[in-house]
């Protein structure tokens, strides 16, 4: 298991009630799988599974199928 820093912005930050968290996961993990892990772990985390939630890995936009791999510093979720 590897610890991943996850940050949330704007309405998602308000929705999950925090600006960031550390989550443990087996890498590599896809963005879609990470959303599912977060949805299970966070209060109101189900909002991450809704349409329109965008993501980035180390400041680069990502899609649900993209992988979070070893060495990644930060994953972000937000609406644009």
């Amino acid at each position: 298991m590897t610890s991943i820093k996850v940050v949330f912005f704007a309405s998602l930050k308000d929705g999950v009630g925090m600006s960031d968290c550390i989550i443990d996961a087996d890498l590599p993990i896809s963005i879609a799988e990470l959303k599912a892990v977060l949805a299970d772990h966070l209060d109101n985390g189900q909002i991450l599974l809704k349409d329109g939630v965008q993501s980035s890995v180390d400041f680069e936009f990502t899609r649900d199928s993209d992988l979070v791999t070893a060495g990644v510093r930060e994953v972000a979720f937000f609406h644009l």
Partner: protein
Amino acid sequence: MILVQEEDFDVDVLYKRLLHANKTGAVAMFVGLVRQFSDLPNDECSFELEHYPGMTERNLQAIVDEANQRWALIDVCVVHRVGRLSVDDQIVFVGVSASHRAEAFQACDFIMDYLKSRAAFWKKETQGAKSHWVEANEKDQHSLARWSK
């Protein structure tokens, strides 16, 4: 020049930065302001801009790079404020200098359209005790689509 800052900006200073002796033939500038968004008195309303430090600047640079690829530009200046703002405050400055006006106008328009939809800024409007995050609107998406034709 790309700046994301809490402080206000001076349009005259930014305009002068865009002037390059013997080269500049046109400067197009856009300034966005916080417009009145409520019937409540201004002191009961506030406007907050959040950004993603690191990613926002990177996205802005990518937008400016794209503009430089599409048009022959001399200089570009983007300043975007973040934090708590009030009605009538300046939010954003986009300035483009070029040899000719067509390039300057189009690049300024392009940068502003992409900035609104792709630059990782989020707006929160507060009216009295109620607040909400402003979502992207269809008009912005239509405006953005013009550039992919």
